[in-house]
């Protein structure tokens, strides 16, 4: 009897601890002052990428390095991201500094160039759900995406995850939460619902409104329906 009871109690205790950790991670909104932070951006197909790049265009160069995650079947987003980053590098005078001093000759220069780091990276993960895919196969592909997302998040350990709705973002955000639950790192999760969503949330939005630190909507109807959300007006 005891040899059945002990593992069950242990599993129950672990579950309670995990849920408590999840609650703590989700509720903590401490603001630690900092000079820069690493950013992981989930770029979905078509309009999602266009919208998120518009948001990124307004961010300062303190948001570096930038890691982009796209679905492996997405061909157009990589092109859009590369154009965006090239355009940004052209406009930002600090990158000129990096180009001139590309071979650091002493520790001081190396530290300085680390602060103004404007590198970016593109990572690919399997898409969690194709448009109109059946629900059962979606559960399986999402689990598969999560299996691959966690090593990526664990390796990158971003300070901030930014996403705006494509299915790809759910496994990434859950993996980021897991980093916090396991006590490895608290990752700030910011979700911006697409401007297309006026009256109803997307499926990703319905899941992540409970798990993100800041959930931004772009129309007042959604703010009324979901008081927990943040409304800043139209931002794209």
């Amino acid at each position, binding site marked *: 009897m005891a040899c059945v009871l002990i593992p069950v109690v242990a599993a129950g205790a672990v579950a309670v601890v995990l849920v408590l950790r999840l609650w703590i991670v989700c509720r903590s909104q401490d603001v630690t002052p900092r000079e820069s932070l690493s950013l992981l951006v989930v770029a979905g197909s078509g*309009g999602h990428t266009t919208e998120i790049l518009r948001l990124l265009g*307004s961010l300062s160069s303190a948001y570096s390095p930038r890691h982009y995650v796209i679905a492996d079947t997405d061909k157009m987003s990589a092109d859009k991201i590369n154009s965006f980053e090239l355009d940004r590098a052209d406009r930002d005078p600090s990158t000129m500094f990096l180009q001139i001093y590309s071979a650091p000759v002493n520790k001081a220069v190396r530290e300085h160039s680390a602060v103004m780091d404007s590198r970016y990276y593109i990572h690919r993960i399997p898409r969690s759900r194709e448009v109109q895919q059946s629900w059962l196969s979606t559960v399986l592909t999402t689990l598969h995406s999560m299996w691959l997302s966690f090593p990526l998040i664990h390796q990158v350990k971003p300070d901030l995850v930014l996403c705006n709705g494509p299915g790809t973002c759910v496994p990434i955000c859950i993996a980021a939460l897991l980093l916090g639950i396991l006590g490895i790192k608290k990752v700030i999760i910011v979700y911006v619902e697409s401007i297309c969503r006026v009256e*109803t949330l997307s499926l990703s939005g319905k899941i992540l409104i409970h798990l993100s630190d800041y959930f931004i909507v772009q*129309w007042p109807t959604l703010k009324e329906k979901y008081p927990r959300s*943040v409304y800043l007006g139209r931002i794209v």
Partner: protein
Amino acid sequence: MKRVFVTVGSTSFDELITRVSAEESLHVSVGVERLRRALPRFACRSPPPTLLLALPGFPDRSVPKEIPAALLQIFRSLGYSQLTLQIGRGAVVPEPFSADSFTLDVYRYKDSLREDLERADLVISHAGAGSCLETLEKGKPLVVVINEKLMNNHQLELAKQLHKEGHLFYCTCSTLPGLLQSMDLSTLKCYPPGQPEKFSAFLDKVVGLQK
């Protein structure tokens, strides 16, 4: 030279492309043809639907409920002399032509639609947010055509909201001809662009970057 630009973004919207490039009416049914042969005075023009429905002897299924005029003819009658189609992933590829002071251009994708948008006097677009916003930000008159074949059509929410605010007109493929002939583009209001700086200010504050 007045230009119309039709765009479907990265999607496929064959029904729209077929309709905008059709030279003949799409709904000429057997019933109408019989009518034309039987009543010579109707041979030169399409009879109005109400007249057809009132005639005995024609089974209902051969009588079209509406006879939309061909869109190319509508564009011509409204003074447009160039029609450019961006067809995306579509399977329907109309043949480009240049005749009777009217030109039809067709292509799938370009790196940027900026030039075509800037030259257009009217834009007819699918309901994708990117296409709509890019057009409205250029201050171009916009007609959004809803693709009724899309399930869970969330794009419709945005088109309805922007129409409510007076920035665009929207319709389906079948109501497009009627809308083109009845709409008044001067009633459209200027679209104020979004403000991403509000986002960056908010984010800077919550992540601790703000001094």
